[in-house]
């Protein structure tokens, strides 16, 4: 069964460093998303992406964040200068096109630890 994959599963970085989180969405999906979940809290929306541009972003998604679909398969989230409060689980999700494809399928997540 097709699934969303994410790498790495765990990333440890020093405050101020740049990190890139990688996702491979399900191959025929067209809509892509990043969410995050701070430990013990609920899952929060960061950004949605369609047709090579951002569709919507939350107030969390400030200038330190960027997304890119560098090729036909990868979807990346970059944090330019990490802060302690960026420590969280980051989930990528994708969704197909059409009325019958309403489910968002999530990857296993990348746990980001900022020291």
């Amino acid at each position, binding site marked *: 069964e097709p699934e969303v994959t994410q790498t790495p599963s765990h990333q440890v970085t020093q405050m101020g460093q740049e990190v890139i989180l990688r996702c491979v969405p399900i191959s025929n999906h067209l*809509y892509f*998303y990043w*969410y995050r979940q701070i430990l013990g*809290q*609920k*899952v*929060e*929306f960061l950004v*949605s992406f*369609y047709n090579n541009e951002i*569709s*919507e972003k939350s107030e969390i998604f400030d200038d330190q964040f960027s997304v890119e679909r560098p090729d036909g398969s990868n979807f990346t989230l970059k944090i330019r200068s990490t802060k302690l409060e960026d420590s969280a*689980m980051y*989930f990528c999700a994708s*969704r197909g*096109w059409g009325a019958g494809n*309403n*489910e*968002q*399928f*999530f*990857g*296993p*997540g990348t*746990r980001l630890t900022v020291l």
Partner: protein
Amino acid sequence: SQQGEEDPQALSIQEGENATMNCSYKTSINNLQWYRQNSGRGLVHLILIRSNEREKHSGRLRVTLDTSKKSSSLLITASRAADTASYFCATDRVKTSYDKVIFGPGTSLSVIP
């Protein structure tokens, strides 16, 4: 404002019992989805119910949706220890297609063997 709110926040039952979790939301929706998350792990999609559906079944799962009350329930029948996890409802708004989903805070379910 929060779109989804689950209750109870925590639920502890004996194996074999049924578990019922509820979700309320504030704005009109296209769909409501339920996800499961084992501790520190990823989000597993359980079931989606559309706004024009009232009930849906999948294995031991039964989901209901009452759009007049803006609420949904997830029933897990004959629970097993492996059902121990957090359960989240997530909604997308009527306003836009292919919208993000908004999660509630979740219900933590413990099934005691």
